[in-house]
């Protein structure tokens, strides 16, 4: 059994702050807003660095590697044609673990992922949005 790819993802309204995150996958990169002066990753993105108070920020490509810090297997279909079960996880980015992304772990049996597993990003294009999803990094 493989995890069904949930259809009809509710897509985000893109804005000045979040556009790079949601479209960066078009070049295969996970883009996280970063402080130009101290390299702190700012997520959710804003144009203020909470560490050094710099207002100079820019999207930065990160490795796309992360660790599952929590996960749930959702069995309830919240609307009629939502395929279940599916895995919702919270992953911590390798470069700066306090950046936590809610995501789906895909391309595996939904009962396979575990807290602590290494994962890597893959993208699913929906209209102009490239939704960052994660897969188990079996080589790790």
């Amino acid at each position, binding site marked *: 059994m493989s995890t069904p790819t*949930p259809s*009809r*993802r*509710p*897509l*985000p*309204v893109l804005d000045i702050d*979040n556009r790079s995150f*949601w479209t960066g996958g078009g070049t295969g990169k996970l883009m996280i807003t970063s402080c130009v002066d101290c390299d702190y990753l700012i*997520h*959710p993105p804003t144009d203020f660095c909470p560490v050094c108070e710099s207002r100079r920020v820019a999207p930065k490509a990160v490795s796309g590697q992360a660790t599952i*810090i*929590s*996960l*749930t*297997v*959702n*069995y*309830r279909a*919240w*609307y009629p044609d*939502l395929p279940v079960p*599916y895995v*919702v*996880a*919270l992953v911590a980015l390798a470069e700066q673990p*306090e*950046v*936590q*992304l*809610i*995501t*789906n772990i895909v391309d595996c049996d939904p009962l396979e992922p575990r*807290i602590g597993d290494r994962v890597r990003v893959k993208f699913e294009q929906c209209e102009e*949005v490239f*939704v960052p999803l994660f897969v188990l990094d079996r080589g790790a």
Partner: protein
Amino acid sequence: MTYSHPEKSCAITGIGQSVISRAAEKSALGLTVDAAMQAIEDAGLRREDIDGVSTWPGGLGDGTGFSPIGIPALQDALRLKLNWYANTRETAGQFGALFLAIMAVHARLCRHVLVFRTMYQATARKAGLVNASFQPGARVHDKMVWHAPYHAYVAATQQALYFARYVHESGIRPEQVAQVAINGRRNAALNPAAVYRKPLTLDEYMAAPYISTPLRIFDCDVPIDGSTAIIVSHRENAGDLPNPVLHIEAIGASMQYRNSWSQLQELATQAQPKVAEMMWSRTDLKPADVDVAELYDGFSFHTINWLENFGFCNRFEAGEFIEGGTRIALDGELPINTNGGALSAGRMHAYGQIHEACVQLWGRGGERQVKGDPAVAALSTAGGPLAGCFLLVRS
């Protein structure tokens, strides 16, 4: 008299609750009027004595039943003449409306505040309006952009992420978790107003389907139609009223963590520890002084978290504390969720907890009355990045 903290100047002087049901025979406004008039009468007051109103989160008008009635509708229905009114959604969970009322009373803006919460989700769901967060096909805005694309748009899925981390770190076992739901049902059997009153066995709990692991269906509270109201009065105006004075001993309302469902770093404890710490810093009372605890059970794990974060047991030892259910039963060392909680008495969003704490401290519990004349209650609400709590004491 001067008080060391503003909340100590305030008392709950009356309570009211509509019929709580899975299918109301009245409108949401009708239920709200029932609760409000009952609370006013219970406090020994009349409509014209009510000079303040607050509610959480305020009328939303989105058809979901989450909060169909706001202050304008109730004020007009009762023709109240108010010196002060406010709602608040961005606050220390659902108790924010109570905390606002405390500040208004302490500031002498008003004497008697009607605080209410109305839900109409049972009826709304029958009409198909389950979730206002998004409509299939529509784009999502603002903070929902970080959850909704992953089909994590309901509280159960989001909060399951906290609970899964708690299970991972604590090692709590499902048969221990089950005791929260079983205890609720056992107490609900003694509460004629509860929604679900049939006893729940461990086998039934374990056999129930998952909603989103580790949450089984019995770990999730039950959407209802109903309204609860309480009257908050200055203690100087409370002494002449019929009910024994229940004063607010201490509140916890802080926000010391990242207020984000995805970025909160303290997954296993949620935002509760510093909120509880604030509450205990404002009183000489200790956890051992608490006679009854009405702990938020929107999901069973919230109750488990609060047991630890209030200090009723040590970190990650709540499973052991509730194992077998005897400690938390009505005749146990710490009776919790004595009316059945939101899991069995219905999702009154912590206002059921306030109502029940007053019932217990006023000795009105009937068959479910905690023995020994309880005088100190601990109450808590919310989860994730939100948390609020307070101590209620019979003066």
